[in-house]
C-alpha cells in the first residue's frame, strides 16, 4: 500500500493532537496512492476506544467520491500501546475492503503500521511511504 509522507505526518499529528484520547479517520487514495487523510470525530472520546459517527462517515465517503478519491483505509491511534491491532480492533474490523492503519505514540518516536484483518487473521501490509527520505 502506497501512502505519501505528508499523509503519514498528518495522521501522526492528528494522533498527537487528540492524545491522550484515541484519534481516528479515513485514508483516501487517488491513482493508487493514499494522499488524503480525513480526520473523524471519536464519538467515544476515550483513551482506549474509538468509534466514528455514521453520519460523518457517509459525508466523508460522499465527499471523497465527488472529488475522485476512494476510501482505502481507516486509521486510529494507540496513545499508549504498540501499532498492532488489539483484540477489540480485530473483533470490530468488519469491513473486508479496507486496510486498518494504526499510529502508535507509545514510544519515543511514533510508529505507523497497516494491517489486513479477516476474521481473526491479521496480516501486516507493506506500507510504502512516498516522499520519505531514504
Amino acid at each position, binding site marked *: 500500500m502506497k501512502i505519501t509522507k505528508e499523509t503519514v505526518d498528518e495522521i501522526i499529528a492528528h494522533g498527537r493532537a487528540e492524545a491522550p484520547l484515541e484519534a481516528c479517520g479515513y485514508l483516501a487514495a487517488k491513482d493508487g496512492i493514499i494522499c488524503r487523510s480525513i480526520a473523524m470525530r471519536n464519538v467515544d472520546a476515550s483513551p482506549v476506544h474509538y468509534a*466514528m459517527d455514521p*453520519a460523518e462517515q457517509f459525508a466523508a465517503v460522499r465527499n471523497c467520491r465527488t472529488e475522485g478519491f476512494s476510501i482505502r483505509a481507516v486509521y486510529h491511534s494507540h496513545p499508549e500501546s504498540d501499532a498492532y491491532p*488489539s483484540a477489540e480492533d480485530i473483533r470490530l474490523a*468488519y469491513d473486508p475492503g479496507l486496510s486498518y492503519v494504526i499510529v502508535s505514540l507509545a514510544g519515543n518516536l511514533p510508529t505507523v503500521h497497516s494491517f489486513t484483518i479477516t476474521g481473526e487473521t491479521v496480516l501486516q501490509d507493506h506500507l510504502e511511504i512516498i516522499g520519505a527520505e531514504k
Partner: protein
Amino acid sequence: MQITVNGETEELQEPAVNLSRLLELRRVESPEMVAVQLNGEFVDMTNYPTTFLQAGDDVDFLYFMGGGSS
C-alpha cells in the same frame, strides 16, 4: 431495474429486492454492523426487510467503525 449503490450504477436482476436482500447480494456478512442510507436518509435495520427498492433509488451503506487499544 437500475439503482445506485455506493455511487455506482447497478442493474438488479431480481424483480423485488429489499435492503436485506441487497446486502446479501453485496456479500455483507454482518448486516447488523452496517449503516444504510436510502436516498440520503438513514434506514433502521428493523426496516430492511420491508424496504423494497425502486428504480432510481440511491443506496449507500458502510460499516460502523470502531476499535480500541484495550
